[in-house]
């Protein structure tokens, strides 16, 4: 522990006098990342979840969308029962006789897709706007930041409701709603970081070299603002998945034919009062593991990527 600390201070001492832009040192960063057991757990969980989502059609016991494979006689079976033809249902079946385990595997695809697509797009838009605001300054900046403040003063779920009330239901509209609800967070962070970085010598040097603004923005300012944005984007994927699940549960999200985890939980809601817990319970656990894994990874990334903590 002590030697590592000394190592880090030595590194910091070396780079301090040149004040070089943060160069990602992948080796030590990875080592630091995996020194936390919780982060290791989160990373493993995340890899497993992503693999399940990608390979769902090949590893799931049943194709939950293929009506030929469903048998209404198999509906509402408790976990561990067997189908009429002897196929085991490890997590039980739902009201249509769908295997819950397969439903979760396919549901993860929709949930992850919505989460990642919306978080990445929001990150792209928000970061661009935030950087632009910081670089251009003046009226445009104050206009953008007013808008950001305004948007951040409304809770995400209210923004999403407002947008879905206007656009109507559906997966695509949920993605749009989450993007509109979340871009402001990135814009604020990007601008905040960029304002600090903008004053540093390497930007001044780039300006003295008469580099075009576009090049300064993209090649010098942006890479040095990325660390906090990556962290926020990671956390935001988890938030987006949770939000999508909530909206789907409220009946405003994914379609019935391609259920996300939230939709699966919502389907089980009506059976809950009769004690058929597994229809809602297991998709909820899957959602939980997904969100917590992503948060653990994000939390650790924040510690690792923050240059203050590296010293």
């Amino acid at each position, binding site marked *: 522990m002590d030697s590592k600390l000394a190592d880090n201070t030595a590194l910091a001492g070396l780079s301090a006098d040149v004040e070089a832009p943060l160069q990602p040192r992948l080796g030590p960063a990875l080592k630091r990342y995996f020194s936390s057991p919780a982060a290791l757990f989160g990373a493993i969980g995340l890899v497993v979840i992503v693999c399940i989502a990608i390979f769902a059609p090949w590893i799931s016991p049943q194709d939950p969308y293929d009506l030929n494979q469903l048998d209404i006689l198999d509906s509402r079976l408790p976990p561990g029962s067997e189908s009429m033809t002897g196929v085991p249902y490890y997590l039980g079946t739902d009201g249509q006789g769908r295997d819950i385990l397969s439903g979760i595997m396919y549901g993860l695809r929709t949930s992850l897709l919505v989460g990642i697509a919306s978080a990445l797009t929001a990150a792209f838009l928000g970061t661009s706007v935030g950087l632009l605001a910081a670089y251009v300054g003046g009226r445009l900046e104050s206009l953008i930041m007013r808008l950001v403040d*305004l948007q951040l*003063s*409304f*809770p995400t*779920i*209210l923004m999403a*409701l*407002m947008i*879905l*009330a*206007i*656009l*109507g239901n559906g997966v695509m509209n949920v993605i749009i709603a989450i993007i509109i609800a979340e871009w402001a967070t990135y814009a604020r962070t990007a601008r905040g970081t960029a304002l600090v970085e903008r004053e540093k010598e390497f930007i001044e040097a780039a300006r003295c070299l008469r580099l075009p603004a576009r090049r300064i923005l993209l090649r010098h300012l942006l890479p040095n603002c990325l660390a906090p944005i990556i962290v926020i984007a990671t956390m935001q994927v*988890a938030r987006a998945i*949770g939000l999508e*699940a*909530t909206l789907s*549960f*409220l*009946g*405003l999200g994914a379609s019935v034919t391609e259920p996300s985890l*939230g939709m699966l*939980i919502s389907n*089980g*809601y009506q059976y*809950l*009062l009769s*004690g058929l*817990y597994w229809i*809602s*319970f297991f998709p*909820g656990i899957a*959602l*939980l593991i997904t*969100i*917590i894994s992503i*948060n653990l990874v994000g939390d650790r990334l924040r510690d690792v990527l923050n240059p203050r903590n590296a010293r």
Partner: protein
Amino acid sequence: MLTALIRRAIQAIFVILAMTVIVFIGINVIGNPVDILINPDLNQAERARVVEHLGLDLPLWQQYLHFLQGLLHGDFGDSFVYNRPALGVIMERFPATLELALSAMFIAIVVGLPLGLYAGLYPERLSSRLIMSGSILGFSLPTFWVGLMFILLFAVQLGWLPSNGRGETVGFLGAGWSFLTRDGLAHLFLPALNLALFKTSLVLRLTRAGVQEVLPQDFIKFARAKGLQEHRVVLVHLMKNLMIPVVTILGLEFGSLIAFSVVTESIFGWPGMGKLIIDSINLLDRPVIVAYLMMMVVLFVMLNFIIDIAYTLLDPRVRLDGGN
């Protein structure tokens, strides 16, 4: 100070105006009101008459002025489902939501504040670490799933508490309240706890952070050096300085409690505004949707305005006019 205040007020009005434009354009341009408002079985002449009656043939800006005029009178049109003024339908549901939000806030403070204080004063203890890990769960667990699990555990398996509706209410100040009856309280408990979960974690973390910020400061050392009893140091000197951020954040979060009650109300069948808006969106009850959205906009703009002022009054270092 006064000019800054007036400037803020004007800004707030502009924000509300801007939001009316967004909501108006959103509802009227992106969705086609003719399709939503008019019975598709009507023939061409009848259709034209209804369009004229509703003013949908006017240019958009005139329609907007019309909409604005109605808004100022609190007139959003009649709900298609209830056939009564939309705002009235919402206001009827407001006490239920308010009661739920206030109860959740109460739980969040009563549970979160002491736990946060404890975790901040004794950060090394195992119990403090457990509390902090628990608060992470409170942040990351999806509220609606926890609500379902509450129902499963307390209502279905144990049968202790009811899972649906408000129970018996008592009329007071012109509205029905659940917390005044035993039955009502039993109905209130689960939804309030569910809604409070996230805020409890928030209060807990804020309090702990506050304790750790205030505790090393000189005036605390001085109070201790003076020989004050520990409980006086904590309850008076520490708490006083702790409360400013906690109270302001809670004020801010109150609005979000009302917004998030949408989820909790839908799970527990709590007949408040949140359940109403979800039902209205599903039934395309446009006047109710618009009325609800506008009400929320006004609520949040006012909350932010009040908090801005409260900051200035509580903390002289913050000035609205930037310290000039």
